[in-house]
């Protein structure tokens, strides 16, 4: 599958209210190409609730049910049951939530829905902050990153949501990135074909949130993969399969770029470089990335 082979049909319509360079719309565009028309989307409070435009207009050509911040997975459980009871078993139900709505406020409902083996896809587009409310820290915000609530840089490491998800022993989970559309498309297609709960997390570099120029969204995703700050993988039948460059990194067939190569382009880490280099924090960020990869190798190689 090459990018030119993706279906032409667009379900994310022109004229949405997204910021220029928005990764959520890039990701959702590909996701909906994979899911097709017979799809229902459940959206909690997140950027997409703004992107979808103002009533009575909409940016999306599929039915969308907005729901409260922490309620995406529970709402999706109800939608799935309601459609199934009407015999509409072919309709794909998917929740589309940010990292705040997934890692933090929505984790309980998500855990419950997966544990109940709800037949749905939960997709988290992870921009590592509460961006819709104006850049506050979330459980997905990485160590050292500035946000409006971590003014001197975040002092804690981010949550490993993938580990938490895999602990539910669900049939399919994956990590993707908006910079790799074919990989994302294939993962969503696969998720659609599997019964039961599926979880996909998409790294979504956010220009205003991370403070980088809007034309660099895709580059920021590529660098996240190449430095190992993010990994592409699939978890199917209790087996982990790393994809693309992440596979080569795991097998040490290529050397990761230093994480600094990723963060130096992002204004949210500027305080680590100016006025003086914060060697201690920079090392901690690199060490934390190395620890994650060593654990991946220990568990999945």
């Amino acid at each position, binding site marked *: 599958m090459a990018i030119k082979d993706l279906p032409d049909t667009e379900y994310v319509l022109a004229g949405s209210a997204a910021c220029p360079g928005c990764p959520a719309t890039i990701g959702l565009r590909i996701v909906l190409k994979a899911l097709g*028309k*017979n*799809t*229902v989307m*459940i959206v909690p409070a997140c950027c997409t*609730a*703004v992107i*979808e*435009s*103002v*009533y*009575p207009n*909409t*940016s*999306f*050509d*599929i*039915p*969308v*049910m*907005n*729901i*409260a911040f*922490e*309620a995406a*997975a*529970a*709402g*999706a*459980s*109800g*939608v*799935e*049951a*309601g*459609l*199934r*009871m*009407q015999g*509409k078993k072919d*309709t794909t139900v998917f929740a589309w939530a940010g990292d705040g709505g997934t890692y933090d406020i929505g984790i*309980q*409902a998500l*855990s*419950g*829905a997966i*544990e*109940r083996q709800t037949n749905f896809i939960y997709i988290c587009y992870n921009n590592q902050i509460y961006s819709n409310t104006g850049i506050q820290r979330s459980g997905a915000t990485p160590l050292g990153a500035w946000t409006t609530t971590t003014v001197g840089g975040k002092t804690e490491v981010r949550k490993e949501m993938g580990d938490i998800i895999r602990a539910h022993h669900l049939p399919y989970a994956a990590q993707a990135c908006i910079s790799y559309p074919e990989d994302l498309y294939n993962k969503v297609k696969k998720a659609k074909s599997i019964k039961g709960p599926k979880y996909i997390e998409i790294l979504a570099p956010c220009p205003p949130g991370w403070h980088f120029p809007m034309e660099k969204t895709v580059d920021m995703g590529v660098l996240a993969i190449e430095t190992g700050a993010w990994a592409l993988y699939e978890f199917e039948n209790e087996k982990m399969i790393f994809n693309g460059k992440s596979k080569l990194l795991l097998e040490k067939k290529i050397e990761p770029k230093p994480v600094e190569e990723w963060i130096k382009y992002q204004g949210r880490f500027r305080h680590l470089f100016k006025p003086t280099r914060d060697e201690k924090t920079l090392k901690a960020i690199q060490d934390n990335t190395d620890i994650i990869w060593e654990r991946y190798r220990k568990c999945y190689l």
Partner: protein
Amino acid sequence: MRKRMQCKSNNHGKGGATMKNIIINTGNYSAAKAAVMAKPDVVAAYPITPQTTLVESIANYIASGEYKGEYICVESEHSAMSACIGASATGVRTFTATSSHGLLHMHEMLHWAALARLPVIMCNINRVIGPGWNIWADENDSISQRDTGWIQFYCSSNQEIFDTVIQAFKLGEHKDVALPVMINYNAFILSHTSMPAEIPSQKEIDDYLGKYQPLWRIDPENPVTFGNIIMPADYEKVRRAMQYAHENAKRLIPEIAQDWKKKFGRFNGNLIEKYRCEDAEVILLAMGAIAAESKVSIDNLRKEGYKIGLARVRTFRPFPAEEIVKLAKKTELIVIDRNISCGYEGALFTEVKSALYNKSDAKVSGFIAGLGGKDVTYNHIEDMCKKAIKGKLKETVWYGFEEVKK
């Protein structure tokens, strides 16, 4: 035709005579029976004392095959209401039940269901809010959900619970209402007390309720975005439409109950149930189990020569203001609240006085009684009535604390 079907469905082999199917069971069982007979496609619920026996009954009906809906055993009440909202948005009938802290945990989604105009039907078993932990009767849980946009019923018998649950589906799903409905009844006093209740046949319930026709639904054939950003002028229209729906409910609640009476002969259906009010000079207003107990008090006080009646308030929202004004034309009123809006007074007391403002100068006395599940017997109620009639009560009286210094 109807009569013949009734005979057939209730024929227990006694020469074809119409037999009544009467169960003797708890309020929770009666509610569960009504819920499954309404055939909701989706139930989503989380256990909480004293609601548990209700949802356990539903699980048993599924196990026995009597109920063929989907019971989503969610991980919290917040998710219970969220799942009901999701299911209802697909256009199917939904039901849940909760109590006390569970209801409070749902609070955000109660607003969501009402604003989405989804007729989720829910039983709430009125129970104390902690701390400290206490599982007995108290109405502060549902009273504190007053402004969520839900229709609120307060029941006083198991028969009324059964009838009201069925009628709630008809009411909430009516195109002129399209609102969620909360059926409240007191913890243990009703939820766990066995009383007789007459149960119609499934066919009769099916005929009475008909098929749910939603105003809107999530449908890939007709993709709409529900609940996106809405500008102030449109939002205000949504709220105004909800208010109109409540006003429609005021009209439809008795109509729907009349329809029920025509079919089943029983009437539990006015916004206010009046008891011996005809020549009354004093009328007692109360809700729930205290109101049921009050009937005994009214009889006793009548024997003593008091011209007193009872107005049992069945619907707290919509509030029966017009009926209360009518009641107060020639009478003084006494209100007993099993709730307290701290910093002011009992909620029913406030609402009653508000209804009378500029329309009546009737004397109104207010009592707080039975909080934390404290027993309120007919003796206590008689005592309260006598104190109100004799005394010049200027503020809310905490019954049982009159002699205690603040």
